[in-house]
């Protein structure tokens, strides 16, 4: 039988050690999931759990990539343009292209990218 006490303690340290059981509020995640489409009906209790961790990974990856752009520009402040550049440079973030080019006058001056992809608005 698994040793609940020890095992849980190890796991709790791994997951819950830093920010509590889930970094991101599950109810909020569920709301956002529901907004993704009119035909989203039911969501299992575990799906937001997965998202809470996935969003953490996502934020980490996007932030790290953006920070690399910041460093290339020899700066210490991470700006929206750095995020935009990271989006441009990463295939799996293509779904964000519209978002990072919106509401910014089309100004995406990626610090170290070749041609700015000026996305028409």
């Amino acid at each position: 039988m698994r040793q609940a006490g020890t095992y849980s303690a190890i796991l709790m340290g791994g997951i819950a050690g830093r920010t509590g059981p889930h970094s991101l509020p599950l109810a909020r995640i569920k709301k956002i999931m529901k907004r993704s489409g009119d035909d989203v009906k039911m969501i299992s209790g575990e799906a937001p759990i997965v998202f809470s961790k996935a969003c953490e990974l996502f934020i980490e990856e996007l932030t790290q990539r953006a920070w690399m752009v910041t460093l290339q520009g020899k700066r210490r402040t991470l700006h929206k343009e750095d995020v935009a550049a990271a989006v441009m440079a990463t295939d799996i973030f293509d779904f964000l292209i519209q978002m990072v080019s919106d509401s910014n006058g089309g100004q995406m001056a990626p610090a170290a990218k070749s041609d700015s992809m000026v996305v028409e608005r």
Partner: protein
Amino acid sequence: MAGSGTGGDHANYGGSSDGNPAAAAGQCSVREQDRFMPIANVIRIMRKVLPTHAKISDDAKETIQECVSEYISFITSEANERCQREQRKTITAEDVLWAMSKLGFDDYIEPLSLYLQRYRELEGDHRGSIRGEPLPTIRHRSPNPSTDVVPFFPQPPPPSFVVPPPSGPPHLNHLYGDGAGGYYYGMYGGGDGSGASTSQDPPMPGFDHSYAPYKQ
């Protein structure tokens, strides 16, 4: 995303806890705030991967906050489509993982599967996994057979639980963060019972054990 943003908050069909509707009603910009993750949480996660001296502009914070919501919607839409194709009503964790893999986030699958496993073990997975029997596998429809791997979730360990792959790849490492491939999971059986699972053991021969080559 087609049809997003119309009608805002739907009724809580899922019936599960939805936080604090009363509190939400008391705030003025509830609709705006409900669209995003709390910015404090976002910032905290960002800081985990940034050096101490790094500064973050406000517009960067907001942009990432928006990107997270976009990410959730993006994945959920794909997962939802799969549910509809398979005529299931409930988006499961497995659907979410499948969608993430399909949309290119397969690097996340392993840590997420681990995370889910831990959650189930800690919280008592009364939510739906099947106890005491091997969980069936679900073949997901990838056109490419070499990527036809479904994230598997470990079943709750019955006393004699052992799933050694016959070819003996690197052992199962229970602890978080060190998946050396070779994970075998019973398949999550689908919350509403209608899932597209086939009742068979995980296909061991020829199975791509590690997640690293699990890329399209």
